[in-house]
């Protein structure tokens, strides 16, 4: 058999694709759609859940879809639209397929109801999203009874099974998702007993922070969970308020909201470089990882952005992968982007010489670990090329355009000069 015939046979093999996208949320579907639109023949999505859509499948509140589909959907309908788009575009969708291990050569170990198989592609796009941190990772104190769960789990109870994990939860957190969690409780016959945030002010923008009081749920900032008690199910919790008072609340659950972290288990299992600050993969300006046949996009990079943001990012990385398929995997030199506290992360985490003419990322995305008043600046080879003075808040998106000169620099660093 000739080489061409062998190649042809491999292309027709059901275990082979031009591109495999791991994760069928907004970022993954958008990447797949873009690849199909760019004429890539075999694009496969591996999704471990029973349907495409990712976290939007159970996000019943946030409006989705305006920019990508020109109309507003609730999460579940948006998820169905994503799935329909992918089907119509001819994406090879494999639901109920869990990727267990990434091979350096693009071979993926996958398990599904049929058992284990190996699937392979010329490029892999990782879009496995993000999740909230559990109580263990937050090192929360107390007993470990039934009823301490995250917003994602709560919304899965409601959206997929029509059941509730509690009736009188204590809610912890004040990110955007925290108010969505509160709304989910109120619309499903649960009455939160209180909402607390350990930081001195709410993390979400106004007017969300007024919402708990409007619906009569006490909301305490600077309040720390001191104990959870309960033998079988949660029975009560102790909170230390900002003024030092200790408050005991009777509750039958503790709802942990926000504190997202990339779902990067596959990377950990596969010895791929993970960026310290974001716990997602290290990527360059095209979304390309250290191993240049791997790309990544969406909330895997940086917990957490909206579905719409992830969709647009996925589309751009999809376009980059389409361009990348026309050439050899790019192994050129990378220069890491360095930063220190109080910066939490910078994406892309590195720039690569010899990347694509149209990079997937035109801006650096930054986040702060805490509220900071001060001057943020970008330095190339020791020379400041950009700066801005401002009040920087934790968990808020900060964008800094990537200057052309940055791709030629051998040192790229962000600095923060605090003035408070």
């Amino acid at each position: 058999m000739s080489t061409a015939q062998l190649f042809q046979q491999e292309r027709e093999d059901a275990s082979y694709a031009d591109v495999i996208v791991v994760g069928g949320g907004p970022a993954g579907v958008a990447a797949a759609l873009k690849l199909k639109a760019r004429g890539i023949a075999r694009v496969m999505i591996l999704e471990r859940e029973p349907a495409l859509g990712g976290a939007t499948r159970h996000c019943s509140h946030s409006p989705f879809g305006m920019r990508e589909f020109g109309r507003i959907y609730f999460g579940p309908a948006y998820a169905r639209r994503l799935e329909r788009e992918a089907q119509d575009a001819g994406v090879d969708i494999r639901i109920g397929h869990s990727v267990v291990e990434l091979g350096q050569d693009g071979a993926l170990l996958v398990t599904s109801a049929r058992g284990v198989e190996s699937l392979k592609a010329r490029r892999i796009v990782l879009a496995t999203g993000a999740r909230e941190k559990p109580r263990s990772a937050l090192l929360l104190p107390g007993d470990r009874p039934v009823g301490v769960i995250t917003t994602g789990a709560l919304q899965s109870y409601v959206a997929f099974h029509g059941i509730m994990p509690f009736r009188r939860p204590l809610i912890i957190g004040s990110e955007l998702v925290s108010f969505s969690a509160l709304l989910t409780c109120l619309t499903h016959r649960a009455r939160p007993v209180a909402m607390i945030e350990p930081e001195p002010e709410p993390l979400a923008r106004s007017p969300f922070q007024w919402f708990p009081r409007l619906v009569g749920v006490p909301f305490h900032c600077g309040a720390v969970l001191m104990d959870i008690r309960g033998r079988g199910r949660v029975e009560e919790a102790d909170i230390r308020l900002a003024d030092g008072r200790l408050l005991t609340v009777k509750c039958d659950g503790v709802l942990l909201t926000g504190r997202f972290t990339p779902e990067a288990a596959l990377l950990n299992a596969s010895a791929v470089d993970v960026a310290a600050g974001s716990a997602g993969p290290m990527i360059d300006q095209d979304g390309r990882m250290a191993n240049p046949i791997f790309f990544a996009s969406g909330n895997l990079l940086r917990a957490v952005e909206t579905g719409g943001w992830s969709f647009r990012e996925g589309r751009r990385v999809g376009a980059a992968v389409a361009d990348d398929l026309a050439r050899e995997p790019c192994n050129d030199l990378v220069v890491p982007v360095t930063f220190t506290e109080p910066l939490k992360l910078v994406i892309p985490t590195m720039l690569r010489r010899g990347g694509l003419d149209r990079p997937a990322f035109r801006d650096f995305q930054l986040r702060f670990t805490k509220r900071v008043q001060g001057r943020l600046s970008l330095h190339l080879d020791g020379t400041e090329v950009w700066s801005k003075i401002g009040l920087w808040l934790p968990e808020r998106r900060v964008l800094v355009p990537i200057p052309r000169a940055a791709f030629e620099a051998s040192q790229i660093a962000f600095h923060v000069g605090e003035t408070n």
Partner: protein
Amino acid sequence: MVQSLSTEFDVAVIGAGVVGCAVARRFALAGAKVVVIEKGADILSGASKANSAILHTGFDAPEGSLELELVKAGRAEYLSIHGRMGLSLVETGALVCAWNPDEAERLAAIAEQGRRNGIAELGLLTARQARETMPGLSGHLTAALEVSGEHIIDPWSAPLGYLTQAVGLGAQLVRNAEVLSGSFDGAWRIETTAGPILAASIVNAAGLFGDIVDARLGLAPEFTIMPRKGQFVVLDKAARRHVPRIVLPVPTEITKGIVVCPTAFGNVLVGPTAEEQDDRERATVETATLEALLKRGAEIVPALASISVTAVYAGLRPASEKKHYRISVRPDRRAITLGGVRSTGLSAALGLAQHALTLHAGFGTRFDLPLSVPDVTMPNLTETCERDWQRADHGEIVCHCELVTRREIDATFSSPVPPGDFGGLRRRTRAGMGRCQGFYCNARLAAMTGDRLAVPLAVGAGDER
């Protein structure tokens, strides 16, 4: 569920912890008609649910002690049955690590004690030699003692396997049965919250409540339980490659100290603390203590500093006012108490069971050996052998982090000792035990388990639809 009052068991085992499960198996194998009386909704719901999962050699046990003898006997039996019963054994070996010259000096004495204890595979290593066998160890290491026979096991499948075999031989498990009182008039009548139970003899393996149960049965307790809490942190599986071996500290008089230990499931755990308390039920975790454990772990293996936490837990050891096991035998009351099994219970359980049967022989009762012994093969949950997700037709993956299949969950509910609560389901399948701790699977598990667990995951499951 309990057979009628007229049924009289040969032996009532009180407490379905690791010791109770092993005792039930040993007596059932000997031909006794066994009942296991458990206060909780599931087995292993006391001290046995939280330990460091090490199968000890006994190298550091007190010389000439019963504990040493039983650890060695228990370990030997485990090694002889684990293959047949599908119970895990990960042969990691251990390094007793000295972090300063004082500790290093004591290693020779520990090695000498180990040899006197009959443990042959001991070797004193320089820091360089030790770090060759485990490069992740901190450069501050002074010296180490290698104990190659220390291994890790799945600490929940093993006792579940013992009890499953006992049940296969006709033993009965009675759950939600707290012992209230007992009377003896040649045979026992035990009053429990699940009704009265009749038995010829009693083996008290009630762990944290051993002294209280003795008192309730009218047996003057010979010891007082003084619970000692141990908190643990379980690190993400990314930690495992840095920790191929068990890292033990040089022990003090009070405790074996903080261990950095791989688990059979592919994680790394750091712990336990040793905190005296009066409460026999509450085992809380505390933020500052967990932070201190993480710090200590990263001092021992620096790469652990950047690895995320998968789980935290705390358990209570049934320590007593003395260091040694507290075993009471009362031939006139046909009662044996296995008490004060504070930290080597997992290793010694099968030895304690042999010992209890020997003591029971002194009561003069002879059992007829069972005609046949059913084979028991426990499902493998460890990463060292094939898991169900690797086999065809597993249904689907329910818990993504731990790759638990629907077939595994269905199977555990139809097993001879099905889970009684969520903790029991987790211990039997690993569902919800992974890094996301249920973000992805908790709702699905709630729907799958419905009202089959003592505390259902969903509230008002009945009236919701």
